């Protein structure tokens, strides 16, 4: 890369970080007094500016030769000791970063546009309007830190910052107990994951003596620690599993998925942006970034794939029976994130990124569509209370339908291609997990169209008091743009168009997932050996299954609405289990929360009597000292003068005649 290119990338990278940060600061500082209902402009400028810079960065990167598109750009040293840098602020820019940046800033820009109307009712902004936009811009900044950071510390900083933003936005309606509880739950569950993540980073530092990506990954590949000794057995697996712990928290995978459905208490744009399209993909990004570490440990890779497949199936079954649209979408998100984990676990990180990319479009679209419905239904989002909205909300219906088709894997839409690819790779490495993926695809099509048919078909019903109205222009524009993406994004990665998406990412994964995958018989090699036809038939199979599934849903919920009731009655136990989400929350409550609460009570008792006693005693010493010393602070001048002179005399005497 030429110095000019690097300089340009540096400028764009900084712009991507600083534009949303400036937006957040200005919106936060001047929002409530000066900007009020114009605050969205500030955030929009910041986020759209970041998007523009991300596009420029992408274009600039294209000008560099394919094998030289990765560069670490130091910005400044934070604290130095002598000539050593204790912590350096540096950006890592490579195709993976670029894809993430485009996804994050692009979707964010649309969500900010959408929020302008969503956060008002009948033209008046909601309470906290400016706060909302400040948080959104802050989130974009945090996510860009996470993605752009060139070492594990910055990754961790970004990681925690997005966690904070997520907390703030889930609890945006903090006056509502459910929202406050959901925010707390998200934060605490993420803390569990982040604790493991933090331990993983510490273990990396202990093992390799550095936290810079390049240095760590090189050492892992060479199999040595910083002192040149061989890495202890199992150390890499331990690091990978600890990092995975963080990824499971942030990306809502089993068993740390419980926070995501509750996170739907936040405003719908937040669900679209943070809890569907961007933040929850941080775990995928992190594993893809740390490919050197994960691929060095086959055990860890198997764990990743297994967790992914299990989560995909598990969440899809729950989504079958839920009635709250946003919750259905939340479980669907968990399930789709499971696909991405599965893909990474079978050495198809490029497919995972591809699915992440297409999923961002159609899931953001679905959430924004659900938001539009919620807006029209006066805050109700439970499909039991409305139906037949097809005529009332025509644009929302069309766009929602497109998103659903993409999610369901309807042939030739974006989700179809990316999901199919994952199943294909999974079948070639872990056939059982591949079959699970296929079953999940069937379930996905079913629950998605169950939701569509319940909400948009049948007799028209709206909740009492709701005045159904189609969304305003600011809300519809993002829906249309995202629909185009949901239809077309998939074509960036198909054979016909030369798999441009995958080739773009190839240099990043060349020495990690692709090299290791070849050793483990992953799909990359098989395409060349006539595997294309296997993939082709698989496409026909999964597409056909999706269509059959949709038809079944049509029969169940439009033609013969008595069937679901029958199924429910005949399998009441199963239904109850699914309805209660496998009782995971209850299990956590029983195993973790209640014992913790009981221990907490014991601790409080101990604290009140034992610790407080000790503390009282401990503080009594300084306190007593203070009272004793206070007598010297009499306020009498002569006393002060005497104490000074006496003090000087005592020092002189002590030092000279010690």
């Amino acid at each position, binding site marked *: 890369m030429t110095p000019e290119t690097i300089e340009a990338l540096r400028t764009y990278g900084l712009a991507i970080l600083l534009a949303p940060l400036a937006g957040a600061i200005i919106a936060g*500082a001047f929002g409530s007094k000066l900007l009020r209902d114009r605050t969205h402009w500030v955030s929009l400028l910041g986020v759209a500016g970041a998007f523009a810079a991300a596009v420029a960065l992408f274009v600039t990167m294209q000008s560099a030769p394919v094998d030289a598109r990765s560069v670490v750009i130091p910005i*400044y*040293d*934070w*604290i*130095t*000791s*002598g000539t050593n840098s*204790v912590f350096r602020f540096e950006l890592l820019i490579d195709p993976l970063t670029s894809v993430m940046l485009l996804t994050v800033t692009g979707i964010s820009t649309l969500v900010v546009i959408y929020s302008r109307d969503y956060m008002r009712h009948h033209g008046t902004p909601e309470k906290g309007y400016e706060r909302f936009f400040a948080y959104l811009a802050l989130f974009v900044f945090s996510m860009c830190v996470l993605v752009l950071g060139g070492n594990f510390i910055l990754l961790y900083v970004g990681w925690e910052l997005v966690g904070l933003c997520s907390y703030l936005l889930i609890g945006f309606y903090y006056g509502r107990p459910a929202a406050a509880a959901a925010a707390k739950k998200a934060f605490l569950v993420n803390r569990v994951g982040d604790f493991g993540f933090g331990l993983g980073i510490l273990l990396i530092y202990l093992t390799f003596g550095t936290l810079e990506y390049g240095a760590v990954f090189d050492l892992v590949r060479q199999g040595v620690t910083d002192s040149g000794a061989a890495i202890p057995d199992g150390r890499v697996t331990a690091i990978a599993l600890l990092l995975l712990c963080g990824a499971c928290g942030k990306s809502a995978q089993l068993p740390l998925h419980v926070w995501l459905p509750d996170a739907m208490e936040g405003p719908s744009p937040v669900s679209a942006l943070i809890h569907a399209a961007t933040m929850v993909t941080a775990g995928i990004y992190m594993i893809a970034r740390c490919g050197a570490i994960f691929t060095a440990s086959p055990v860890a890779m198997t764990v990743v794939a297994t967790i992914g497949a299990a989560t995909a199936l598990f969440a899809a079954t729950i989504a079958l029976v839920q009635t709250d649209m946003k919750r259905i979408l939340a479980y669907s998100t968990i399930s789709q994130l499971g696909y991405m984990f599965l893909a990474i676990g079978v050495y198809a990180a490029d497919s995972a990124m591809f699915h992440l990319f297409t999923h961002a479009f159609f899931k953001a679209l679905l959430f924004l569509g659900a938001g539009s419905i919620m807006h029209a239904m006066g805050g109700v989002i439970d499909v039991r209370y409305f139906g037949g909205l097809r005529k009332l909300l025509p644009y929302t219906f069309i766009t929602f339908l497109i998103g659903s088709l993409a999610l369901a894997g309807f042939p030739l839409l974006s989700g179809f291609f990316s999901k199919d690819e994952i199943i294909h790779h999974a079948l070639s490495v872990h056939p059982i997990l591949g079959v699970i993926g296929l079953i999940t695809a069937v379930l996905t099509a079913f629950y998605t169209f169950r939701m569509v048919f319940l909400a948009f078909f049948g007799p028209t019903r709206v909740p009492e008091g709701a005045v159904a109205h189609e969304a305003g222009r600011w809300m519809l524009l993002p829906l249309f743009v995202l629909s185009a993406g949901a239809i077309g994004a998939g074509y960036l990665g198909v054979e016909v168009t030369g798999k441009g998406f995958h080739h773009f990412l190839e240099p990043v994964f060349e020495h990690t997932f692709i090299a290791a995958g070849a050793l483990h018989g992953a799909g990359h090699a098989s395409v060349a050996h006539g595997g294309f036809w296997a993939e082709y038939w698989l496409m026909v199979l999964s597409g056909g299954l999706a269509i059959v599934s949709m038809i079944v849903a049509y029969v169940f919920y439009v033609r013969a609405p008595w069937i679901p009731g029958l199924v429910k009655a005949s399998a009441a136990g199963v239904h109850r289990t699914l309805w209660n989400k496998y009782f995971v929350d209850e299990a956590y409550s029983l195993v973790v929360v209640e014992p913790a609460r009981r221990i907490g009570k014991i601790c409080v008792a101990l604290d009140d009597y034992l610790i407080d006693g000790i503390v009282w005693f401990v503080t009594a010493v*300084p*306190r007593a*000292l*203070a*009272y004793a*010393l*206070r007598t*010297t*602070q009499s*306020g009498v*001048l002569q*006393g*002060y*003068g005497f*104490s*000074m*002179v*006496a*003090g*000087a005399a*005592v*020092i*002189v005497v*002590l*030092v*000279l005649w*010690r």
Partner: protein
Amino acid sequence: MTIEHIATALAPELILLVGACFVLMLGVTGSPPRGRWVSSASFATIVLALIAAVRVGSPEAGELLPGLWITSLTIYTRWVALSVGALIVLVNWHQPVVSERGEYMAMILLSLLGVLLTASANDLVVLFLAIELVSVPTYVLIALSRDDTRSSEAAVKYFFLGALSAAILAYGMSFLYGAAGTTTIHTFTNGIVSSNFSFGGAGQAQAMIGTMLVFGGLAFKIAAVPFHVYAADVYEGAASPVTGMLGFVPKLAGFVALCKLMSAFGWNIPPELSWMIWIVAAVTMTVGNVLALLQKNVKRMLAYSSIAHTGYMLVALLVGPVAGEGPMRDGVAAMLFYMAVYGVMNLGVFALLTAFRTGGRDVETLDDLSGIARRAPAGALALAICVFSLMGFPPTAGFIGKLYIFSGAFSTSAAHPMHDAMIALAIIGVINSAIAAAYYLRIVAAVYMRTEKDEAIPTGGMPVRWGLALCTIPLLVVFAWPAALTRSATDAVAVVQQSIFRNSEAVATTDPPSSVHTPTLRAPTTDHDDALEP
């Protein structure tokens, strides 16, 4: 040495002097007197001096005038003092009544001039005069700051005790003169090797008494135990904006003078004196923090907190300079860094106290502060940032300052004669930081969680608000990007060593000094050996 050269090199000092005279006249001339313009004129003077300091300031190879040597310690001190000085003027903008404002602002400018001269003093007499030039105007400022008996009482107390400390300082300096045979600071080390000024010989007692008394005199300026007793009464008696200045200006001058004193001995003092500073540092931190625990009056609390901060900075002073290492290892660089940060964060709290009034009087107690967060969220946030910085919490500059100081104390080389003791001192410091959190958090709690009184109303004008904002923002900026301040502090230290060791012709021509000749001297560390190479 042409007169132009001298005038250029001393431009900031000259600008301050002329500005002080001008402001003094401006306050009393005209009818009615043009007191309203005084604050703007003072601010402009300081900004001009700051520009001069940044533009023309470069270290000189030798003495500029007898007794004045512009080193890069001077350069650093100049811009720190003038930057914070500009903020001090902003915070004092509406003080006191218009008719007295001329004298008042002139005193602030003269006091700052004293700091600048302290930083370039190379002679004990000049040093003494410069230090007194820092102190004398502050007596006047306290008396003028409020129209009540409390400020008069504070002024009188401060004046008498200040005079006492000046006497101790001068007495100590006379001992040093007697021992060294010279008052020129940079030739002290010549005395060690060539004449009767030797810690090992007959002059030892004399030199040590002199050092201790000078330390005592300066301990008053920096409010170290046992010369701290005045602080609480004086801080409480003076008006808040003056108190904000009192916490910084004399302390800066005192620490710079201590640097000079230490470097006069090549940072190579006998263990008895090291232990004296060790004990003073430990006791100062502890006494400051412990007494602050009991206070309900924020100004008294901050008086004790300022004593505690002196203790932290003494730790760094004792670590001493380590050439080319930066403040993570270099105690003096850490101290200079901390001094700048302390000046800003301390002033920020007083700026907030200045910006509010309750029931017709200044805000002073925790009760007065309660509920401010609801009336003035921005002010409360600024206060919280300053307080968190004083506490040493991220994301503020105070965190980095404490990190530097304690990291330096933890990482002294094994050759450092106080190696183990420094670790113990660092631990005492960390424990003290924890104790300090107790009372600092009470300020934040009062502002954000208590609402029962909720009477304080914002009254300060725009300059005070700007002062508060300009105290707060740098704290965040320096946390995110400490490199610039760190580099300045590191550069300043290079000269603390060089001007005394490397540039001193005598050292270059005579035998390498120190341990060879004086067995009782504290053994120089390897790092110091580097510095001693001619």
